[in-house]
């Protein structure tokens, strides 16, 4: 059996940053396993710019951002395997993987970092009525076809859902000569970042239909059109408002789901709200020595945040293999209060804190002129005034370790309150 101190599953931005950081923190024997044909994950198909503003203070494309980490990985001599699929993780941290060169391999790891990323929600998951012709794609699949394989997926396109990938693809398809007829959003606001609405739709005069949704797909062999209806305040289609859009292609950009089949198989506890593992301050899951980071834990807006979170996981895994990660100290449970859908991490082992802890969270609705209130066992610890809160934009609250250490706090809650 092969033996490694740390096995990182996934060679996308999360896995790369975690591996590099683990190495920097003294872990030596590290293996990154990637199922695709190249490192970098989904970044490789994100050829638009806008990556790295936080991390590098400059705007990079996805492949450029990935390359910086791939270069570091190679400089540090970290081993990796491409075109290799992990098919099982056991509780005692044996990773089973296959590829065409090594065949079936079992790898004993001392620590594992899960960085499998996420997948797209599909048309099937949202149960759109109509036929099942060619020309229905999830936005990311279309992006791969166009940007990596070099093929166009359609000429007249309607994009359902206004997540960032949908917005980016509206621009991309337009630049490739396709006509994007409309982008829909179920909510009265866009699902993606504001900058993407401006740069990808408004700059190209692509209509954004707020509070609209697809109600039917038409076409036997290839898509011939879609019906789109206006939604009421409960997001139900309003009868009589259906309009037909003649098109040959429909893209669905309706959300991402952390890909945790391996985690579930290994018996790791999953949070129903994030669909990712429950993690602590060190990004450690419910299984000792198994860490997780990036979109496999919860879906991030920016790769920069993925990088930061993954560094934490990498550093913690390095500490773990050096037996420096503390286990038995006091633990604070984080609770998503009014208006908050989740908080990552879910738990804080106070003794492992260094300086500060970032609480990453999403709000449930659009809020204006409110405050986010952090309470320790019901006592207000921190208040942050907010002009605007959007579910599409992740909120980060930084808490100083001094406020938590030695205070015997059991629960930390965040909620939204009127000013």
């Amino acid at each position, binding site marked *: 059996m092969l033996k490694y101190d740390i096995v990182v599953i996934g060679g996308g931005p999360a896995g790369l940053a975690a591996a590099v950081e683990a190495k920097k923190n003294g872990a030596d024997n590290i293996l990154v396993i990637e199922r695709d044909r190249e490192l970098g994950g989904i970044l490789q198909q994100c050829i638009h710019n806008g990556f790295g503003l936080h991390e590098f203070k400059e705007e990079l494309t996805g492949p450029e951002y990935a390359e910086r980490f791939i270069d570091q990985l190679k400089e540090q001599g970290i081993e990796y395997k491409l075109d290799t699929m992990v098919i099982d993780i056991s509780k005692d941290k044996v990773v089973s993987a296959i590829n*065409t060169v*090594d*065949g079936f391999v079992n790898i004993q790891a001392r620590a594992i970092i899960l960085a499998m990323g996420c997948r797209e929600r599909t048309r*099937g998951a949202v149960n759109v009525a109509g036929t099942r*012709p060619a020309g229905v794609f999830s936005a*990311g699949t279309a992006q791969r076809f166009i940007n990596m394989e070099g093929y166009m997926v359609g000429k007249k396109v309607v994009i359902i859902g206004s997540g960032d990938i949908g917005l980016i693809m509206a621009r991309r398809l337009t630049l490739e000569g396709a006509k994007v007829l409309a982008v829909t959003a179920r909510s009265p606001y866009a699902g993606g970042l504001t900058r993407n609405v401006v740069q990808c739709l408004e700059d190209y005069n692509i209509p954004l239909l707020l509070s609209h949704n697809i109600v*039917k797909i038409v076409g036997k062999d290839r898509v011939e059109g879609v019906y789109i209806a206006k939604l009421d305040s409960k997001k139900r289609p309003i009868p009589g408002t259906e309009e037909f859009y003649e098109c040959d292609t429909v893209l669905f950009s309706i959300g991402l789901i952390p890909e945790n089949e391996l985690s579930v198989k290994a018996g790791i506890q999953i949070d129903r709200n994030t669909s990712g593992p429950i993690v602590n301050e060190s990004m450690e899951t419910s299984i000792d020595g198994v860490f997780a980071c990036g979109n496999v834990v919860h879906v991030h807006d920016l790769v920069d945040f993925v990088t930061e979170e993954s560094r934490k996981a990498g550093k913690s895994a390095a500490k773990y293999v050096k037996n420096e990660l503390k286990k038995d100290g006091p633990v604070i449970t984080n609770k998503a209060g009014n208006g908050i859908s989740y908080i990552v991490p879910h738990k804080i082992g106070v003794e492992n804190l260094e300086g500060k802890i970032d609480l990453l969270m999403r709000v449930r609705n659009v809020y204006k002129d409110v405050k986010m209130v952090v309470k320790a066992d019901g006592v207000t610890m921190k208040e942050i005034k907010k002009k605007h809160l959007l579910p599409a934009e992740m909120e980060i609250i930084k808490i100083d370790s001094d406020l938590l250490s030695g205070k015997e706090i059991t629960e930390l809650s965040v909620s939204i309150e009127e000013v």
Partner: protein
Amino acid sequence: MYDVAIIGAGVSGTLIARELSRYELKTIILEKDNDVSNGTTKANSAIIHSGYDAAFGTNKGKFNALGNPMFDKLCNELDVPFKRIGSLVIAFSDEEMETIKELYDNGQKLGIPNLEVIDGEKVSEMEPNLSEEIVGALYAPTAGIVNPWELAIASAENAMENGVELKINAEVIDISKVEGGYKISTSDGDIEAKYIVNCAGVYADKIHNMVSAPTFKITPRKGQYYLLDKSAGNTVNSVIFQCPTKMGKGVLITPTVHGNLLVGPDSEDIENKEDVETTSDRMSFVRQSAEKSCKKIPYREVITSFAGLRAEPTGGDFIIEESKEAKGFVNVAGIKSPGLSASPAIAEYVVEILKGIAGKLNKKDDFNPIRRKVIRFEELSNEEKAELIKKDPRYGRIICRCENITEGEIVDIIHRKAGATTVDGVKRRTRPGMGRCQGGFCGPRVMEIIARELGIDISEVVKSEKNSKIITGKTKDNSVYNEVNEQVVTVNE
């Protein structure tokens, strides 16, 4: 001239073809679509009924009772997954228990083995996720689940291995009488055959009317379904039927043979024989009806929904007989539920009919009932996986990460007889795209493999029918970029 032309490559047509391939006959299957198993066979409840339901004295009752016990051997020979998981017809009132008893009595008459009327307590023991208001049920342990399209595909393959020909994209346009048989004009040329077996599903009336005055009509009866992720597959352990009432048969809940959960169907008579659209009102109806049986169906795990058409004949019973007006023309029509369960028995019976017409059929010495085993990588032990990849490294590359399907498996099913030529064809045979990502990740890779193995350009790869191309062209020509890139590399060196 062919001895027999079978029209329609659904589960009826392909199983009949396989039965006929036991004899010294020149047989051809004509299929209007781009693949076998593309009509009713690909979208139904996928259940092998135990057989208590259809009335004693009907073809449905007779052939269901005969067909059910044949599945173990058949599926074993054809290497098609089949599980006898049993079924329950659940009752919510004393009145419904009366119906349960009637079904039991009907089953006794038909000789259905091991039927049992059980009480509510036993039901909740067997199926803890079902409604607590259930007062009793009819338990039929011989009911099973199978993948109907896999069965049809496997039968087509085995029939072809034994000499049967298959012509896809050959829609029958006209049939005329010629000396010693019939001339069949198709969208892909004419053929002649002594005998015709009409297995055209919802089009069986149309085909029959080419040789005879109309004697029956087939109405497409649409049913819509939800398919849920494997994580929801153990919501129930057996096939759960609702008690038939004046309001209809109700919807069923069942695990599929691959471990997903299936919920449906509703029932709606329609005009258009191609209409397999799902509709939101009907889908809500299915959901509401299923709620009565089980409140714990996790609809957030739905991975897709679909609709299928049952071939509802006038008279309501299977029509399996030689046409009165057209000698040598055998109808296998109106094969609605329990058609799948009855199909192996129907196939044997059709051979008897043809023996009656032809006088005698000679058995072949070299008929091989065994289909070459399909490698299902996911089901192998670790040692077997290791061994297999050593022999053929293509089994070491996972293409479908939801179902862990390897490149080796996909290549294999492309090169078999009646092999896959389309993305949906690959999906139906070996499941990439069937899982929770619905082909989002593996779609481009599957297309690449199809193109490579069939020696066509990737832009020619279709989803299912001939006009269902997936790619519409190339992005901006990047050949210049490649040249420039090479120059840059050279300069830098």
